[in-house]
């Protein structure tokens, strides 16, 4: 009965979304405040209904109600409770419901905290959100119903894919969706502005915190996913340029560009039209990502052709929303007045350059991801576009971007002084070069590019710090005064510096792992010792173990350095009983920010076992940098500017962050 209630709540949510999408628009046309005010209440009701529906599905999972087909397909009564809960979104139907839940959650947030939005703008924004919600509720109800029943109910479920039985599944998808779907708010604001034909600095002030919040979540989601893949998939890779990854990376790149152009628009009223276009593009890429992942088109064109219902449905949503938004843009963009004037060498100019490179990078990833599909559809030729292509093109594009990043904050608005900025960055560049030279010396030559990459990362970090040092006057005035000035700096400048420092840290991690990682593949018998860099590993033997829903074979290794045992590590192979599916659980030991990664391979006929050991220097910098970037986003969100006149708005996304 409760399952049917959940299903019914979803149908009611659809009805509410339709009302929310129509009546407020009529209200704006007629100037009827009652109809416009309806939007906020409808958004809240819609959120409560979808939340109830989601709670019901969770209840079915927790109580292992196998009469629900979705639960039977993806759960098992012996599964630990946390994986029963996360299993809710560890499948197509449930994950679409989560997508929808987060979408209506954002609508409700706009309704709740957008009290001092102009009422026509608010009504229009919520209406656009409701159109998206209507489309996706229909999608869930018509093609991906998670509440379908099975008669008779089976006694035991088929269990969740073992790879997904991990804490990563609890964190990664919700964070990713909070980011990806969060950009829907920017999209709705952009479309609402186009409908009204009016856009001003206040608009940018509304859009920027949403962009920041969504961007922060997406950064977290992508980093988390990368780390999850790193430790779970068992061969130590952390980014594969897989289409599925690109699907989340493209909105991130576009969102980063949006973040920077919204800044120009807020401060200087310039780049209005471009910012609106970027806001639409960013969410369009989120929708495209949903299509790529959910339609099965990536697996193969044939899989898509045999069961096209879902794919065609999302494709239709894609065409309607992206096509509609861009047509609207084409018709109305000329109504928007261009704003402030600036010289090419200026803060605005630097941010325009940032946008140019980031959008080109986005387009490059997009082309690379879709090219094989399009080419095959057009000519029947099959080609692959993989990591080597992306590393080369994307890397070449990022190089100049990274080099100019520290210049941006040092240039003045309107008209900047390039020579002055270069002078002030002299220390950063010198330290960067020194670091590169030191690294080159330390590794005894080798490839020149790697030390240079490391130096670039150091330059980025020092360059970002330079801005803070100069602004607080450290070294020129007394420390106490400098501290006072520093704490008086706008939070957004500190956020900017943190984000740029984070980028530098990530860059250092990427370069170090790519250039200096070592891999050792050996066959080991108990007692065997192998040297990996400064450490040596002794294989002590295997032990059989048993978890709640799996059996495992774990190998024990003693790690020593200079003959002294410093640590130990277990690495195992598991067999999940329900699906008879084997997985590897890599053994990972952290030394500083570097890691030793031990993975078990095949058993050999003579009693030995293949062991793969990687030394991953500075690898934690990759995700640590992302954490610092996120911290930058959060600090930026607490900026006074974003709070003035809208007390709750800037804090809200933060509170969400804490609660998640």
């Amino acid at each position, binding site marked *: 009965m409760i399952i049917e209630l959940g299903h019914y709540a979803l149908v009611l949510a659809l009805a509410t979304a339709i009302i929310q999408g129509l009546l407020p628009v009529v209200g704006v046309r007629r100037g009827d405040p009652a109809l416009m005010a309806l939007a906020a209440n409808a958004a809240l009701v819609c959120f409560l209904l979808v939340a109830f529906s989601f709670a019901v599905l969770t209840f079915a999972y927790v109580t292992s109600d196998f009469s629900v087909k979705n639960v039977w397909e993806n759960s098992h009564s012996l599964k630990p409770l946390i994986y029963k809960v996360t299993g809710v979104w560890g499948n197509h139907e449930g994950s679409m419901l989560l997508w929808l839940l987060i979408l209506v959650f954002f609508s409700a947030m706009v309704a709740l905290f957008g009290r001092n939005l102009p009422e026509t703008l608010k009504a229009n924004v919520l209406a656009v959100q409701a159109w998206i919600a209507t489309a996706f509720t229909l999608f869930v109800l018509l093609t991906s119903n998670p509440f379908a029943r099975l008669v008779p109910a089976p006694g035991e479920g088929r269990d969740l894919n073992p790879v997904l039985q991990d804490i990563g599944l609890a964190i990664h998808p919700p964070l990713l969706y909070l980011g990806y779907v969060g950009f829907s708010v920017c999209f709705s604001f952009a479309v609402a502005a186009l409908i009204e034909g009016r856009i001003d600095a206040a608009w940018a002030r509304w859009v920027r915190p949403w962009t920041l919040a969504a961007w922060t979540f997406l950064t977290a989601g992508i980093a988390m996913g990368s780390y999850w893949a790193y430790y779970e998939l068992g061969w130590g890779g952390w980014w*594969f340029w897989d289409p599925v990854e690109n699907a989340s990376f493209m909105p991130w790149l576009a969102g980063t560009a949006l973040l920077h152009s919204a800044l120009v628009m807020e401060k200087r009223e310039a780049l209005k039209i471009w910012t609106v276009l970027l806001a639409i593009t960013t969410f369009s890429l989120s929708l495209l990502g949903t299509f790529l992942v959910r339609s099965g088109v990536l697996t193969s064109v044939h899989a898509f052709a045999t069961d096209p219902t879902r794919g065609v449905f999302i494709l239709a949503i894609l065409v309607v929303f992206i096509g509609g938004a861009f047509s609207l843009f084409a018709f109305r963009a000329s109504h928007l007045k261009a704003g402030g004037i600036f010289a090419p060498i200026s803060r605005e100019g630097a941010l325009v350059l940032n946008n140019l490179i980031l959008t080109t990078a986005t387009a490059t990833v997009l082309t690379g991801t879709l090219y094989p599909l399009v080419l095959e559809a057009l000519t029947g030729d099959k080609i692959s576009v993989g990591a080597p292509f992306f590393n080369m093109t994307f890397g070449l594009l990022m190089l100049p971007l990274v080099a100019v990043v520290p210049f941006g904050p040092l240039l003045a608005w309107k008209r900047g002084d390039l020579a002055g900025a270069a002078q002030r960055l002299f220390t950063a560049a010198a330290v960067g070069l020194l670091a590169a030279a030191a690294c080159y010396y330390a590794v005894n030559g080798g490839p020149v590019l790697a030390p240079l990459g490391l130096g670039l990362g150091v330059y980025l970090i020092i360059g970002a710090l330079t801005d803070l040092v100069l602004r607080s006057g450290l070294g020129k005035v007394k420390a106490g005064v400098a501290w006072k000035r520093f704490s008086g700096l706008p939070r957004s400048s500190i956020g900017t510096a943190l984000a740029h420092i984070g980028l530098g840290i990530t860059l250092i991690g990427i370069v170090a792992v790519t250039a200096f990682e070592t891999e050792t593949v050996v066959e080991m018998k108990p007692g065997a010792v192998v040297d990996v860099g400064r450490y040596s590993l002794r294989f002590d033997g295997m032990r059989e173990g048993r978890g709640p829903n799996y059996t495992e074979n774990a190998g024990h290794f003693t790690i020593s350095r200079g003959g002294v045992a410093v640590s130990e590590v277990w690495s195992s192979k598991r067999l999940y009983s329900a699906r008879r599916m084997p997985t590897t659980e890599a053994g990972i030991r952290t030394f500083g920010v570097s890691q030793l990664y031990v993975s078990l391979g095949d058993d050999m006929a003579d009693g030995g076992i293949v062991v793969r050991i990687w030394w991953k220097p500075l690898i934690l910098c990759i995700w640590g940098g992302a954490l610092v970037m996120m911290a930058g986003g959060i600090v930026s969100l607490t900026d006074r500017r974003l709070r003035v006149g809208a007390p709750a708005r800037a804090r809200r996304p933060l509170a969400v962050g804490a609660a998640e």
Partner: protein
Amino acid sequence: MIRLLLALLLLLASAMPGLAVNPDEVLADPALETRARAISAQLRCMVCQNQSIDDSNAELAKDLRVLVRERLKSGDTDEAVISYVVSRYGEFVLLNPRFEARTLVLWGMPAILLVIGVITLVLAARRRGARVPAAPLSDEEQERLDRLLRP
């Protein structure tokens, strides 16, 4: 969720855990082995989802790895090895697509976009520059200005 599909397919593609290069495949000559690894990283495992033969433990990937090493041992250059594999398996096997007519748009995209972007920016800057000189004051306005400025 993003990783679900990838993870699923990886597992479907590879029935057993344990990956990639096995000790018995490794060549005795380290220089040759390094070249073999570099080539392997550029060749697609045809039965996997977006994995190179270097990363995959599928049977086909193993066969290809051994094949690459055999060609290298018999003295082929890197290009010759890759060409040989392509001649047997088609261009689909290349993770780094060749630069040719049908991949022109793919390889050219970043450059084309950058050029278009720069041209647009320059034109926009010119237009902005041209807009700056405002229309001269009309006689009436000049008179009002004079009146205001008069001490």
